[in-house]
């Protein structure tokens, strides 16, 4: 029983990834407060008296937080978790127009999409999916856009020739 509660405490702190109040733990595990406190203290000792990469911190409340040990911060800072993200429909459409019609100006993209595209273009530029390719020789000298190397990489193309052919409308 004691071991089960300890395991449950450990699991709850692990999954939550943020501070969990003692009150909440009592409610969750349905164990009297005093018993829980004793078991938690044991768990704290197990975690913190050894040289480990993960520790449990007691905070005001009291609340408990499972987190990494500061000694490991060096390695952890090297480890950045890539964020997997889908492009929004607006980004995809804009990117598609640029891919198939490059070089193309913002006004030309807006004419096709029927909506303002300045923000989308900025975000595509920031994400390194498109780049500027000089101005167009018409009044106002608008900037033209083309797809970038990054675009090819993201969509697994070796060159723009690999873009699927399209029956133009």
């Amino acid at each position: 029983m004691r071991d089960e509660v300890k395991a449950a405490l450990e699991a709850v702190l692990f999954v939550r990834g943020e501070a969990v109040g003692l009150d909440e733990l009592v409610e969750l595990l349905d164990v009297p407060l005093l018993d829980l406190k004793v078991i938690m203290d044991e768990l704290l000792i197990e975690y913190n008296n050894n040289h480990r990469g993960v520790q449990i911190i007691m905070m005001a409340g009291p609340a408990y937080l499972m987190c990494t040990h500061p000694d490991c911060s060096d390695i952890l800072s090297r480890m950045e978790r890539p964020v997997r993200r889908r492009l929004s429909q607006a980004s995809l459409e804009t990117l598609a127009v640029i891919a198939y019609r490059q070089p193309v100006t913002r006004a030309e993209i807006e004419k096709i999409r029927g909506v303002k595209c300045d923000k989308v273009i900025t975000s595509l530029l920031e994400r390194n999916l498109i780049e500027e390719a000089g101005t167009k020789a018409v009044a106002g000298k608008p900037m033209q856009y083309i797809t970038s190397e990054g675009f090819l990489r993201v969509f697994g193309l070796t060159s723009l020739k690999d873009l699927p052919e399209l029956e133009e409308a």
Partner: protein
Amino acid sequence: MTYVVDLEAFHGPMDLLLYLIEKDEINIYDIPIARISDQYISHLQGNDVSDLDNLGDFLLMASYLLNLKSRMLLPRPTVEESTDEADEIDPREELVQRLLNYKHYKEAAATLGMIHEGEMARIFYRNTADEILGPEVIVNDLGSLLKAYRSLLRQLTEEEPSYEIRLEDISVEDKMEEIMSRLAENTGEMVFQDLFLGVRYRRETYALFLALLELLRLQRVVARQSAVFGDIMIYLRGEQHVDER
């Protein structure tokens, strides 16, 4: 009727059909089509289905059941060459297969639901939602890109005839402002034709021209043509350009 069931509680016609069959403990391989389709239809009639999308799916199944019922009522055509039972295809067979198939995935869904709710032993991953995030990896594939472009082109061809309606927001007043500021940028003068550079739509041309006429009327600008067929020059009024030459 002893059963009053909310149609909304069913996740589609297959679900309802399965319920009717299981309720009466019917052998799924020998469904009394006439009875089941009557029950099915009375369910539809007894319910106010607010979701029309869903109703369509239910009605499709109803017509399928009625078709099946009529086929069951008709005497089976006797095939001259062979009268083997084995060669006869039970019209219900497709329905049975579909029902079994659906049942199969419905059970799988229930299992997944139990796993999700932790009713079955499972592991939990750590909640890393606000962990330090590294570089972004975009997971769209080429197919989604292509699809986006195709739908765009389709919209484009459909909407082309009415395209200019979009430009209702061109106002003469805005164009007056535009002319004034362009004049200011061009040290107070510009060639008439340059006014229309980069203009794509006829409506915009009209608006610009009307704006110019209005500015002339208000005497905020002056237009001057120094020779027949020569350039018409537009000057900002109240500046040194207005002085008589």
